[in-house]
């Protein structure tokens, strides 16, 4: 048994010569899971070196339609804490937790957040899970993460509190920048059509109006109905810009732009961070990227 474990460690050292990665397997660290990459980034910022953070839905992944693998069940079984977003974001998680038989504490990071109703959906009464799109909510996430970590690992109380305070200060600076940037956009141009219905919290916090035409969430080839819905939405809202990450055909995007006169924006990241090659590898980068995209598309 010990020999086998030693062999594993040896193999890990051999394949991951990076000292940080090798240390990551040391037993001293608290193993925690975050359900998706944005939450994982917040947990890392609070937990720092005392944690070994794994995410279930990684960078660029879509947590809405994620299918957990057996490896995920093993990760959950080994974890001391599982951080989840809640508000119905990870519909697959309950079954995964049950199947893994884990004794981990399940911490809902959105606890205490005032949920918004899901926009533009038939099932009224369900809440919009994309709460992290407002920085004020991210502060609540951070406080919840800090408190949960202290409850599990009291020895690190001072460390977690210091990390959380430092990160909260960064979030304050971020929020000031976001508000400054948006204040420079003329108020009649703060109207955007997107193909992804994920910016309700951003809208209510920062006053940029988002519309997502119903039924246009498909990643398959857009039908005439989809295109007509997008164009109607742009006309009705008098939207100044349109963000169409789901439509991959550049010819179609050009056609929509020329028919409506709306500016075509780049990509807005909603549910996941990008991998190391992208430009939203952390939560703060993600918000900065989105606001930058909005500002450049909406500038008159």
């Amino acid at each position: 048994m010990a020999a086998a474990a030693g062999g594993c460690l040896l193999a890990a050292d051999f394949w991951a010569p990076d000292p940080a990665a090798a240390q990551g397997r040391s037993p001293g660290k608290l193993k925690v899971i975050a359900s998706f990459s944005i939450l994982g980034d917040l947990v890392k910022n609070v937990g720092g070196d005392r944690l070994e953070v794994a995410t279930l839905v990684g960078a660029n992944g879509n947590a809405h339609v994620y299918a957990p693998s057996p490896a995920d069940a093993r990760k959950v079984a080994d974890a001391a804490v599982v951080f989840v977003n809640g508000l119905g974001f990870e519909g697959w998680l309950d079954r995964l937790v049950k199947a893994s038989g884990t004794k981990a504490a399940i911490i809902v990071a959105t606890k205490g957040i005032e949920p918004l109703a899901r926009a533009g959906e038939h099932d009224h009464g369900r809440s919009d899970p994309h709460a992290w799109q407002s920085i004020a909510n991210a502060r609540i996430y951070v406080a919840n993460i800090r408190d949960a970590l202290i409850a599990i690992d009291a020895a690190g109380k001072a460390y977690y509190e210091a990390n959380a305070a430092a990160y909260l200060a960064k979030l304050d600076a971020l929020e000031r920048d976001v508000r400054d940037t948006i204040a420079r956009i003329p108020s009649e141009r703060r109207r955007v059509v997107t193909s992804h219905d994920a910016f309700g919290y951003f809208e209510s916090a920062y006053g940029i109006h988002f519309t997502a035409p119903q039924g246009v969430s498909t990643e398959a080839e857009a039908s005439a109905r989809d295109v007509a819905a997008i164009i109607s939405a742009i006309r009705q809202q008098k939207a100044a810009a349109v963000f169409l990450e789901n439509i991959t055909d550049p010819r179609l995007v050009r056609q929509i732009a020329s028919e409506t006169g709306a500016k075509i924006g780049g990509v807005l990241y909603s549910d996941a961070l990008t991998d190391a090659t992208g430009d939203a590898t952390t939560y703060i980068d993600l918000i900065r990227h989105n606001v930058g995209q909005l500002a450049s598309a909406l500038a008159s």
Partner: protein
Amino acid sequence: MPYDFFVAPFAEFEFMRRALAGALALALGAGPIGVFLMLRRMSLVGDAMAHAILPGAAVGFLLSGLNLFAMTAGGLIAGFVVALLTGLVARATELKEDAALATFYLLSLALGVTIVSVKGTNVDLLHVLFGNVLALDDQTLLLIAANASISLLVLALIYRPLVLECVDPGFMRSVSRAGGPAHLAFLALVVINLVSGFHALGTLLAVGIMMLPAAIGRFWARDITLMIAIATASGIAAGYAGLLLSFHVGVASGPAIILVAGALYVISLLFGRVGGLLRQLFPGRHLEA
């Protein structure tokens, strides 16, 4: 409201009008071409040529993205090369024309997929394989309309030798030497119509708007002129109804157009005046009078 259902989508949205104009031009050129292909038992040649065009379009795409000129030029070059090589091999060797075409188009297709896989992504390949009738800009519309016009003019010029060769190739060879050039010109028309179709529908579905209307025409007319008229009309009807279907039901437009043409084909197959299945089952009345 019939107006809301049948007219409003086109009145309200420019992209729908463009799509309709594109589908109309496409049907005008492809209808007669398809009829001649069918009558000369070359129905599958269109499919083979569509595959042959792919590598040219792929090279154009890789060199300059979704650029109309580059993809058109690439497609035309690849199509003409395959058509010419096929003709040469068929005339110079023992290999028959169908076998020669099969070898060249398969090589061309394999080359195209290889080129895309070396440099592009799957998403890119899908754009090349499936055009988008909803995204026709001015240039593309002009190209499709120009191709349709050229096709109709050239067809008018080579109509007689072409018809003769369909009906009695032996007689044609004995009275005139126009058969060879007419055949080559006809193959060139097949290629330019497929290139048109591939901008609007993609390389694979472009053949559909060519061959399905032709088969529909065959079930309603014995006379070649009427057959062409019916084929063209059913191509136009399929384009219009397919766009309406895509608009109201929300299915992808290109496949919707071809599926409507397919539905018209099935109706013709069953009820067609000339050799339709029901006609064959109940032929009685013809003999009375």
